[in-house]
C-alpha cells in the first residue's frame, strides 16, 4: 500500500483518503465480501479486453450493474446473465439506502467495485457512498487506472502508455478473487 495523488490532482476530499493497493490485495478484499456488486461504466468499451475482465469477475458469481452505455458491450458479447443496466446516479441513490432490495430483489450490497467509469463521475459516486452509506458500512474499491481517494481501496494512477501493465494487473485481480 502507498500514497498517490488523485488522478484529477485537485480532487482531494478530506481527511479520509483510500489506500492504494496492488491487485492481489484488492482481490483478497473483494473475496471477503458477503454480497459484492461490480459496477461498470462506458470506458469498458474501449477494448474488448476490459469487457472480458468484467465478464471474468461476473463468472466468479458477482453480479454486474452496467452503467453508461456499457450494457451494449455485454449484449454484443452475448453475456447478459447477471448483468443489469442501471444509470449510475440512480444506482448510487439506491446503494446509499440500506433498505434497497438490490438488483435481484434480495437486498442491498455490502461491497461495491467500480470499474470502467469516467473518473470524475465515479469519484463523486464513491464520495456519496463514503459519506452516506455508513450504517451499515458499504465498502468500495476501484480497479480503474486511476487513483480514487474516495474509494476505500484503489489502484494507483496508470498512464495510457502503461496499458499493458494495467491489463496485467487486471488479470492478476481476477485470478485472486475467490469464486
Amino acid at each position, binding site marked *: 500500500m502507498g500514497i498517490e495523488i488523485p*488522478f484529477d490532482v485537485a480532487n482531494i476530499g478530506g*481527511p*479520509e483518503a483510500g489506500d492504494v493497493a496492488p491487485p492481489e490485495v484488492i482481490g483478497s478484499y473483494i473475496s471477503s465480501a458477503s454480497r459484492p456488486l461490480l459496477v461498470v461504466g462506458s470506458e469498458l468499451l474501449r477494448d474488448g479486453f476490459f469487457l472480458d475482465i468484467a465478464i471474468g469477475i461476473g463468472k466468479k458469481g458477482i453480479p454486474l450493474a452496467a452503467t453508461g452505455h456499457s450494457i451494449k458491450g455485454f449484449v454484443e458479447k452475448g453475456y447478459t446473465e447477471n448483468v443489469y443496466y442501471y444509470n449510475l446516479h440512480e444506482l448510487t441513490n439506491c446503494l446509499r439506502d440500506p433498505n434497497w432490495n438490490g438488483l435481484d430483489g434480495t437486498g442491498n450490497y455490502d461491497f461495491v467495485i467500480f470499474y470502467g467509469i469516467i473518473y*470524475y463521475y465515479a469519484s*463523486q459516486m464513491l464520495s*456519496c457512498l463514503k459519506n452516506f452509506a455508513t450504517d451499515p458500512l458499504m465498502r468500495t474499491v476501484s480497479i480503474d487506472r486511476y487513483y480514487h481517494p474516495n474509494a476505500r481501496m484503489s489502484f494507483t494512477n496508470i498512464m*495510457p502508455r502503461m496499458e499493458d501493465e494495467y491489463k496485467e494487473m487486471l488479470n492478476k485481480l481476477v485470478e485472486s478473487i475467490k469464486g
Partner: protein
Amino acid sequence: MEELKKGGIFTISDMSNVRINIGEVVEEEEEWEPMGPHPMPRIATLRDWDFKILNRYKPFYAPVCDMCCLCTYGKCDLTGNKKGACGIRMDAQQARIVLLACLVGCSAHCGHGRHLLHDMINKFGRDVPIDFGPEVDIEAPLTRLVCGIKPKTIGDYDRVFSYIEEQIVQLADALHTGQEGSYMDFESKALHMGMLDSLNKEAADVIQIACYKLPSGFPGDGPDVPLVDVGIGTINTNNAVIIVIGHNVPPAADIGVYLTENGLDDKVELGGICCTSIDTTRVYHKAKIVSALGRQLRVLRAGIADVVVTDEQCIRADVLELCQRVHSPMIATNDKAMHGLVDRTDDDPDKIVDDLVSGRVPGVIILEPDQVGEVAVRTALEMDKKRRSLKFILSDDEFNYYVNDCILCGGCTLACPNGLPIGEANKSAAAGNIKPLADLFDICVGCGRCEQVCKKHIPIVDVMTKAAYPQLKEEKGRMRIGRGPIWDSEIRKVGAPLVLGTIPGIIAPIGCGNYPNGTEDAWLIVKEFAERNYIVTLTGCMAIDCALWKDKDGKTIYETHHGGFGGGGVLNIGSCVSNAHIHDAAIKVASIFAGRPLRGNYEEIADYILSRVGACGVAWGAMSQKAASIATGFNRLGVPAVVGPHGVKYRRAFMSRPDIKEDWKLIDASDGSDVYVEPGPQDLLVACETVEEALPMMAKLCFRPSDTDRGRSIKLTHYIDLSQKYLSTYPPDWHLFVRVASDLPLATRDVLLKKLEDEQDWKIDWKKKKIEAGPIRGYNPSFNPTNLERLIRGKK
C-alpha cells in the same frame, strides 16, 4: 407648492427647510386577472410545494469536499455525515453549498438584469412599452406568475427587481453560520432561488427585447428569424476584427450601431463568444458567432481579435493576460469585471484610442455602453494595420519541436478535467500522425490547466490548435438568431398534442460547454430528438455548439429543421437569459391551453407542468453556478433536467425511487381519490455518463401521468427505440409505463405483450389483446392528476 423636482421631490413656499419626498406613485393597475394565492412569494410561501417535490425526489448528495471551512471553528471534518462544530451535518452542508451556488448564479442574472435596466432607462427612459406584437399577448408569463404583475413598460421592472433583490438577501442570510440546519429547508431555499433566477432571466430578456426591438411576436420574427454565421472559420481576418465576450449586450449593440452609422460594417468584423454573441446577432445581423464559451482561450490565443470587448459573466479571469500575449487591446465595459484596468469612462475618445493603439495601456474600462462603439471600432481599424503581419499560430518547425519535446510524464493528463491523453497524442504527432492531437481539440474544454504543469513548458493549447488548424479554418456553421418568446398562437396549436403526448415532448438543450466528449454530442442530441418530432428549444452555448456540425449535404441542424414551436422544430431561443422563454412556453401551455389562472399562482402551474407537460432540459456541459440556479428553477416549476457527467460535481441531484410505491401517490382532482402512478418523470435532476445513455434517459423523463394512450405509445416507441439504438437493449423499466395494451406501439404490440407476459408475469387476454393484470394502474382518460389537495373539484 413652489417647485416640483424630478423623482417626486418638491419644496413648499416659505417653508424652505421642509422637503417632502413622495416615493413611487403607483398607478391603479388594470384588473387583468384576479390575484392568485401567492404573489411575490417569500422564503416560506411555497415551502409546502417544495417539500412535496423533495419528498418524492429526495436530495442526493455527493460531496466534492468533505470539510467545512466557512468559520473559525473549522476546518471541520464532516466525513461520514458527521456534524461540524456549529452542529451542521454533511447533508445540510452540501445543501448549503448548493444554495450558495444558486445564490451566485441567481445574483449574476439579477445583477445583469438590473444593470441592463439602468442602462436602458438611461438611454430610452422608463416608458418603453412592452409590446411584443400580435403573436405574443402574454408577454411575461413568469412575471405574471411569480409577481402578479402585468408589465406595461420597462419601468415596471423596478418593482420586480426590488422583490428579487430583497429575496436574494434573505436567502443569503440563511447561509450564515448559525442559521438553517435542515438540508430539506436549504433545498427549499435553493428552489426559491432558482425560481427567482428564472424571473431574473425573463426580466432581462423582456427589457432588451423591448428596448432593442429584438425578435418577438411581429411578422418575420419567431419561426422566421434569419440565419447567421457561426464558427472560427467565418471570421474574415482581412478585415479588422472586434471580439465581444460575455452576456450583457449594450456595449456590443453600440458597436453595431457605430459600424452601421459610419458605413463600416463591411470593413470591420464584429464577432462574439458566449451569450453576448447570440444577443449581438439579435441586434446587429451582420455580427458573427465565433464560438461558445469552451473555445474562449483558444480564440483569444489564435490572435484573430484586433480588439477584445468584455462585458460580464463567462469571461476568463486571465483575459487581459491573454489579450496582451497577442497584442489585442482590451476594453472592459462592466463594473463587475474590471480586471485591474483604469476607468476611462467620459475620457476623450481620441486619447483612449491613442493610448490603446500605441500600447501605452493594455486596456481600458468604459462603463457607459454608448461610449464603447467609437473607441472599439477606431481602435480595431488602427490595430488591424499594426497587427496584420503578426502570426500567432505555431509554425511547422515550432510545432515539431514541441511535440518531440514531450517526455510523456502524464502531468497534463492528471491536470486535464477530461483526463485527455495529450502526451500520447504528442508522440503520434512526432511520429507524423497529427490526427489524434487534432481530434483532441474538440474534446478539450479549453481550460489551459495542462500548460501550467508541463515540465517542458510546451504551449499545449497552441500545439493542439496548430494540429486542428486546417479544420478550424473550415469551421463555418449557420444558426438562427435568438427568437425570444414562443408565440401564443404556437402554444394554441401544440398545447393539446403536448399534454396528450402526441408530440412526445420538449427537449431543451441549454447551458455551457463543459462536455465530456466534445461538441458533437450537442448536435447528436438535437438531431435525434428533432428527427423524432420532439420540439427542441436551445439557448446559450449548446445552441452555438450544435451549429458547428453538418449533415452529409453540408447542412447544419438549423438549416434542415424549421424554427417553429412544433414537432421537429429546432429553435434557438437566444442567450442564457432567453431560456426563461422555455419556462414561459410550459407556463403558457397551462394558461392558454388549459385555462389555468397565472396571476400569483406559481404552485398550481408548477403542479400542472410536473404532471402534464412532457419537457426535459439537458445541460450536457453544465459548468457554472448560473447553470445550477437555472436547473433548480426548472425543477421548482416541474421540469426535469439531465446533466452530463461533469454535472455530478454540483454535489446534489433530485432522484426518485420508483420502487417506493408511496412516493408515487397522486390525487385525481376530479374526485379526490388517491391514484398510484408510474414514475413520470422519474427524476428532476440526474447525470448520465455518456450521450448514448442520455438520449433514452431524456425520452424517459418526458413521460407524464396525463399522457393519453396514443401519446404514451408514441413516447414508449421512442424510449424503447432509443434504448435499443444506443444501449442495444430494452430499457429495464419500460413496463412501468404501460397501463393498457393501447399504450403499446401498434407495430410492436404483440411482441411487447409477449414480453410482458414472459418477463413480468403479466396476465394477457390474447383473444382480446388486452392486459388483464400487471400494470401499476389502468388508463383513465379523465384522470386529472394533481399533488395539491386544494385543487380537488369533487369528492369520491
